[in-house]
């Protein structure tokens, strides 16, 4: 009786339904999220309605794919504020940083946006490199510099300049401090104080002699304009006090560009 009762309790349609359910569960397990490619920076989900994926890191490159809202992407690398991403189906392309700023980071349930991750990453980039063109004591001048900004206000700067004039060629190397009076603004004025070594040599076609060396003290100010993320336009006026016997003052003005990274 009990066995008959047991058989009667399991109806005929239930067995194929149970089999179908088990099959669907197995299929779902087989279609698991693909593993993140090596070097993945973040696993994100799109928050915008859609984002365009470009063939290269720039708005001028053609759009060949679109990722819709909540689509999951692996962020691989960055170039000029464009990010190379890979979709779950393995399609690779580039997305603008502004499109990723609101994307949700899918990693252990942290409530972060990609923009927050990027801000933390950018805060670690304080190095600067750039060049200026201008005039030093009336001669055309070229200078280049590297700097490290260790706080919002202060940066240490090393610069070298060359002014091959009509009658003589001058050059200097200086080490100094740059103070941004009003930091974190698009227009940021700054003050520079530096010291270094100065050298001048007459043209060999005029006078074949050894270069004259001396020490230069520099003080001046300028303004920096953040044209784009990581790219500044700067201009400054500096006063040099050259000491090599007598102290002589020269004025230098310069305009140029700087890349921050």
């Amino acid at each position, binding site marked *: 009786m009990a066995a008959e009762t047991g058989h009667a309790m399991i109806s005929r349609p239930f067995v194929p339904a149970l089999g179908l359910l088990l099959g669907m569960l197995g299929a779902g397990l087989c279609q698991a999220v693909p593993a993140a490619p090596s070097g993945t920076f973040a696993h994100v989900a799109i928050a915008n309605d859609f984002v365009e994926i470009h063939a290269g890191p720039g708005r001028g490159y053609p759009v060949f794919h679109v990722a819709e809202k909540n689509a999951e992407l692996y*962020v691989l690398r960055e170039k000029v504020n464009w990010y190379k991403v890979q979709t779950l189906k393995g399609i690779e392309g580039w997305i603008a940083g502004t499109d990723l700023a609101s994307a949700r980071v899918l990693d252990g349930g942290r409530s972060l946006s990609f923009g927050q991750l990027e801000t933390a990453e950018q805060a670690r980039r304080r190095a600067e490199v750039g060049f200026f063109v201008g005039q030093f004591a009336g001669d055309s001048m070229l200078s280049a510099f590297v700097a490290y900004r260790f706080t919002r206000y202060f940066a240490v700067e090393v610069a070298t300049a060359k002014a091959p004039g009509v009658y003589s060629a001058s050059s200097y190397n200086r080490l100094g401090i740059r103070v941004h009076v009003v930091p974190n603004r698009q227009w940021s004025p700054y003050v520079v104080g530096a010291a270094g070594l100065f050298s001048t040599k007459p043209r060999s076609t005029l006078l074949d002699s050894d270069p004259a060396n001396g020490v230069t003290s520099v003080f001046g100010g300028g303004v920096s304009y953040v044209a784009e993320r990581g790219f500044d336009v700067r201009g400054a006026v500096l006063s040099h006090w050259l000491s090599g016997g007598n102290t002589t003052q020269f004025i230098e003005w310069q305009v140029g*560009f700087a890349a921050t990274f």
Partner: protein
Amino acid sequence: MSKTLILGVALWVCAASGWAADAVYNTSGSLPILEPTLDRRTIKVPDIDTENFEVGVFIGVLSVEDFGSSMLRGARVGIHATQDFFLEGAFGQATVSDESFKTAGLSPFGAAGNHLLDYYNVVIGYNLFPGQIFWGESRAWTSAAYVVAGVGNSHLANDDYFTMVFGMGLRAQPTDWLAVRVEARGHEMETNLLGRQKMGHNFEANFSVGVFF
């Protein structure tokens, strides 16, 4: 177990939790200080792989006004600051000969004959026309035409000459990290090699290979 007994136990549990809450509020007569039970996690941001720097070598031809053409070789370092602008420094070297003057009985370089012309310059570049180059039916390289302008210094015959540089080129990238370029540049050099101050125009054409990292 009767339904009445179950309901009674449930009501007792609710009341007990209410009494516990009352106990917390009544001990000091002011709002309680909540002790967080979760440890604050330190989120470590990984370093993202960036490819904004480019290092390359180039080879080509440099034509120096009044002195003829010679093979040019050099190297460059660039920083791609934005999708539109990049900064680049280059160093190049070519051999300049005054043979053409010697046939006329002149010798601007004296007994030396040949001199190395070394130049270095820094330029700012602008990516004009980003796009793609297509090879056959299934291969495409990202590409961009660009223009550059900047200043530099040319060293020739023991003297330095301020130089302005301008040019344009085409960059194609077979991969994200590799770039090949064809470029033409003009160098405006203030020179007095022939005894009078003048602005000389030197023309450069080069082919270069660069790596992004």
